[in-house]
């Protein structure tokens, strides 16, 4: 990893406006949890926390969108405005650039998602049991995988943001929900499967459609393939192709 690139990336992706917006976005699950605790009646806390808060809100919306914003901003914005040349025209191996950028994007995503998931989970369920910790671990792992995917996407296409939104909302939100055979191509299902495996709760409280071990293996595989593709594409990146 390259420290200079990481420091640059921190300043790139943590611009004041973007960070404020994402922090506000991360507070939405906390507000929903507060609303639930103040108005909800006759509802099982664990069940609501696992299914509505985590599986229904954070894993489906907050996690992929934060990863999409940070993942595509880390390198994609440089291709867009032409500043990528200032990093690429330096004697630095391409894998170092990808891994440095990815590390910053993933760290920022993990931090924001964990902040939201832990705070909202404690508010919603009181923090008892393994639901908060289990989901938080799975969400953190999912954040890394999503970032790998979106950093890769930003190198492969100049329309990474649109492609990412289509993947999150159309592919994961609609298509893989309709056809169960396609769950193995959904990072969201990996996250839910892994969470289910970690929390080992009563199936009546929460049950994922994908096996946790399968989900974990697929996470590693998808992240590795995305990084390999990203490095390979960056090695043959031609000026003008992503701008």
């Amino acid at each position: 990893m390259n420290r200079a690139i990481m420091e640059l990336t921190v300043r790139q992706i943590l611009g004041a406006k973007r960070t404020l917006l994402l922090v506000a976005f991360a507070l939405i699950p906390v507000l929903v949890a507060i609303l639930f605790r103040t108005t909800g009646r006759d509802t099982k806390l664990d069940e609501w926390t696992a299914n509505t808060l985590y599986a229904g809100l954070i894993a489906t919306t907050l996690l992929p969108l934060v990863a999409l914003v940070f993942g595509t901003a880390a390198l994609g914005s440089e291709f867009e405005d032409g500043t990528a040349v200032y990093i690429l025209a330096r004697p630095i191996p391409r894998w170092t650039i990808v891994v440095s950028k990815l590390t910053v994007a993933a760290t920022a995503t993990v931090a924001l998602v964990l902040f939201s998931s832990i705070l909202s989970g404690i508010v919603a369920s009181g923090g008892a049991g393994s639901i908060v910790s289990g989901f938080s671990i799975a969400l953190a792992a999912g954040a890394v995988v999503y970032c790998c995917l979106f950093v890769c996407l930003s190198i492969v296409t100049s329309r990474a943001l649109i492609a990412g939104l289509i993947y999150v909302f159309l592919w994961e939100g609609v298509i893989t929900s309709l056809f169960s055979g396609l769950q193995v191509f959904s990072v969201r299902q990996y996250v839910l499967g892994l969470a289910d495996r970690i929390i080992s709760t009563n199936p009546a409280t929460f049950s994922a459609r994908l096996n946790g071990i399968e989900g974990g293996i697929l996470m590693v595989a998808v992240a590795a393939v995305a990084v390999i593709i990203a490095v390979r594409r960056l090695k043959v990146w031609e000026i003008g192709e992503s701008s």
Partner: protein
Amino acid sequence: MTAETVAPANRPPLPGVEAPAVELTNVSRWYGNIVAVNDISFSLGAGITGLLGPNGAGKSTLLHMLAGFLAPSAGEVRMFGEPTWKNPDLYRRMGLVPEREAVYPFLSGFEFVRLSARLHHLPDPDAAARRAIARVELEGAQDRASGGYSKGMKQRVKVAAAIVHEPEILLLDEPFNGADPRQRLQMMDMLRGMARDGCTIVFSSHILEEVERLAENVLVVVTGRLAASGDFRQIRRLMTDRPHTFTLRSNDNRRLAAALVSRPIVSGIEVDNERISVRTSDFASFAQELPRAAREEAITLFEVTPADESLESVFSYLVKR
């Protein structure tokens, strides 16, 4: 005149002899059915070379291939004998100033140049950045955010970032865009100094006067082909299918015109009170005949000026062919 290369470039360097700084061998680049660069070969050593061509001629494609940011579809682009494509280690010896004026707006000029020094793993990035900023005379604005720089200042900070590691080859894409006349002169002086120190500098520019003033060699690219290369005055002299025009001034213009008009190498003469305009198809013979004729007629020559040897006239001629 046919396309000429500075030197043939299809031989491997001899053992112990360093390969040319820049070497292109039968390089072509196409995008689908469109040929952007067509079978170009040349090699360059230390000095300043101007890359000229109309829009869409292929000069940016050529510069990007030199910089290792485009793969040749055919042929080889080498620097110091190594291929530029997929070879980031070459950036230790090469600096690139891209045409786009974008810089990281949140970094100050100093931070921007220091970033470049750090990415080059220089032992003292701060000192290297200070030196480079001093060379482009940007010390006064080095602590301001570069997002607020003028176009000329952005150009200078980009140049500083490109030379911070003291490269042996410097590639510049339209480096004088946005620079005021004083900055332009200062940058030209700096580039001349680098060339004197042995740096190979290749720059593209659409301003012919800049190329004429700065470049020792020109590469003229027209519709993807290398139309000409070398010293542009020599190129002009090689264009034998077009008359050369000279403006002469002497102590007796009419008698000199009468002496010249009978010579077979002179294809036309116009005389007014002040000057004679002579057209000839043979530059070298005319250069010998003119003093001979003046001597025979006991005429004193005050001025002999090639009237159409400006780079602009050379360029226009090559583009129209």
